């Protein structure tokens, strides 16, 4: 049954491409996406009782490939379906629609496939499909430097997938299987020292695809590319990164009986978060600000997932969903803003709330979500992360959210004021784009107000929020918001160092060196911890 969630989008993609129906095609696309959300929701409700397994081909034992949908996978698949529906509504009038819908649908099918598959080699094949699709979408309009960006993205990802494949080879040699569940059982009796190498190889690949610290140089190029349609940037930031975070979770789970490099990923996550928002402060291009922010948020998610307590894990998981919602809203609205104002410079865009109230309110809600304002979804996930954390960790989290606030004060200054670059009255934002952006923005608010219920609904676990603790967090938020405003006004605006950071860029060879360094660091950490204990 699960097979068709992957195959049907792909079949429809090829079908639409063959028939080359432009205007009819997008109607079919929207209808299909709505139906897809319904079908996914139906399966989602089924998984509340027990996980669903599909044995492709029905061969005995472990000879074939298994697909499974458990609680976690179901949440991700539901997120994918909703996200693609909204992105499709947003890009209803996309130019060159034939190719666009073809690639979007294949991307959707392959993403769902990554969430559902239990076979690691199958995951590799799907990742390659997605990589090629994304590389084409990045340079969709073939402007300026987009071809270079696309090539950079493609070559780096193709390089790192070789590491993954080599690690998979070692894993297969030792366990004799490529199935995650069966490999977990087979790994139980193994020596820890034997697994260090495959673990490091596979995790290096996954870490690059999640844009962790030394290896994030491809992400701003890919996500902030001016040539890509805005819906593509939104899906890249909101969903595509999550595919690999999901694989990271599965892989950690698989190796967890023997290896747990939680400390390593905690440190890397925190560092990534800090570097991400520092670089975001330096940018002036609105899409690049958001792209660097994705790095920062991924760092936060990794920190939450690696802290090791129940609540921080829930917080990390919930932040994945939240990040998809508000980053989607921000990227989509950024696309509309760029079209309306005709510029990408954050200092030239002013008066958004007055000109375009719909876009402005959605942007405002998303900003409140990402900075962790009370009643919005970011606050819930950040609260869960901080619940069981140590005192130092709490300070670090507050520092990270302060950094987020500072850079979003800059972003939020678009909402008010007046400037020369304001558009003529004639430039209108299409209704469907406003609907899509507003839907995502509203969801940020909704999942914040009903935070506990949303967590229960998505992850099927029970959580509670302590009112007093939440109020304390709200106080901290307001304090840091005021602090952030003044820091931005008196330091960031005039800083020379940040201006220099703006032109920070890594070449391909330095990126390769970074991969090597990360691999060595991970190998040494995991290996030395083994001798230490």
């Amino acid at each position, binding site marked *: 049954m699960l097979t068709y969630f992957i195959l049907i989008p792909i079949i429809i993609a090829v079908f639409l491409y063959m028939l080359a129906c432009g205007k009819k095609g997008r109607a079919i696309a929207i209808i299909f996406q709505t139906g897809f959300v319904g079908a996914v929701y139906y399966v989602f409700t089924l998984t509340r009782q027990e996980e669903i397994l599909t044995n492709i081909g029905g061969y005995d034992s472990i000879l074939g490939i298994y697909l499974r949908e458990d609680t976690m996978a179901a949440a991700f698949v539901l997120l994918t379906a909703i996200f693609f529906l909204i992105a499709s509504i947003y890009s209803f009038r996309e130019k060159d629609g034939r190719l666009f819908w073809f690639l979007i649908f294949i991307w959707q099918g392959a993403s769902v496939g990554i969430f559902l598959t239990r076979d690691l*080699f199958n995951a590799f*094949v799907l990742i390659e499909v997605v990589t090629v699709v994304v590389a084409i979408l990045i*340079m969709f309009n073939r402007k300026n430097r987009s071809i270079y960006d696309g090539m950079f993205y493609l070559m780096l990802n193709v*390089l790192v997938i070789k590491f993954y494949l*080599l690690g998979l*080879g070692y894993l297969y*040699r030792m366990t004799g299987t490529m199935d995650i569940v069966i490999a977990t059982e087979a790994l139980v009796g193994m020596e820890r020292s034997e697994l260090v190498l495959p673990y490091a190889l596979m995790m290096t690949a996954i870490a690059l695809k999640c844009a962790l610290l030394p290896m994030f140089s491809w992400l701003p190029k890919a996500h902030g590319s001016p040539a890509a349609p805005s819906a593509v940037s939104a899906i890249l930031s909101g969903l595509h990164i999550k595919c690999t975070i999901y694989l990271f979770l599965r892989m950690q789970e698989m190796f967890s009986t023997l290896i747990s490099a939680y400390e390593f990923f905690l440190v890397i996550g925190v560092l990534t978060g800090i570097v991400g928002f520092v670089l975001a402060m330096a940018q002036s291009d609105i899409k690049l600000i958001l792209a660097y922010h994705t790095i920062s948020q991924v760092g936060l998610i990794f920190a939450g997932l690696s802290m090791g307590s129940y609540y921080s894990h829930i917080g990390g998981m919930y932040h994945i969903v939240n990040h998809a919602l508000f980053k989607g809203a921000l990227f989509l609205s950024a696309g509309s803003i760029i079209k309306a104002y005709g510029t990408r410079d954050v200092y030239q865009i002013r008066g958004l709330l007055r000109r375009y109230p719909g876009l402005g309110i959605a942007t405002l809600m998303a900003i409140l979500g990402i900075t962790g304002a009370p009643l919005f979804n970011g606050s819930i996930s950040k609260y869960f992360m901080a619940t069981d954390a140590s005192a130092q960790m709490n300070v670090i989290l507050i520092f990270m959210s302060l950094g987020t606030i500072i850079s979003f004060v800059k972003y939020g200054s678009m909402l008010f004021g007046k400037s020369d670059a304001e558009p003529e009255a004639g430039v209108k934002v299409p209704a469907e784009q406003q609907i899509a952006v507003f839907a995502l923005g509203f969801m940020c608010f909704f999942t914040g107000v009903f935070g506990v219920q949303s967590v229960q609904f998505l992850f099927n676990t029970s959580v509670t929020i302590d009112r007093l603790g939440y109020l304390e967090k709200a106080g901290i938020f307001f304090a840091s918001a005021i602090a952030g405003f003044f820091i931005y006004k008196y330091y960031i605006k005039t800083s020379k160092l940040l201006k220099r950071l703006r032109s920070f860029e890594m*070449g*391909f060879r330095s990126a390769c060196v970074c991969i*090597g360094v990360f691999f060595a660091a991970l190998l040494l950490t995991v290996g030395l911890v083994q001798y230490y204990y």
Partner: protein
Amino acid sequence: MNTGILNTDLIELICILVFFLGFYGLIATTNVIKSIVFLWVMEMAVIMFFLSIGYNIGIVAPIGTDLVPGQVADPLPQALMITTIVIGLAVTAVNITMLITLVRKHKSANWDILRKKSSES
């Protein structure tokens, strides 16, 4: 049996060596075409590693009826590696098209020059 294990071990070492030679080439060269060649070299090393799993002297291809498991090569990596090779071809084709378009535009295939000229335009 003992020599069999030694055999796989040596081939594995060679594969790792070539894998890192390819990686070294990626870091040391500035030419994009050569980078693509080295990606291919790395892929070949990985494929060789997969195929050498369980290699023993006198092993035969897994083709025929009434095979004895101890005497034939492992069929699963072979099937997977065909998939990998085809994907490699597709990715290389895409990559080279991008590169030719870039070279046509900027008249160079050097990573640094391409970066500089791309950010100018």
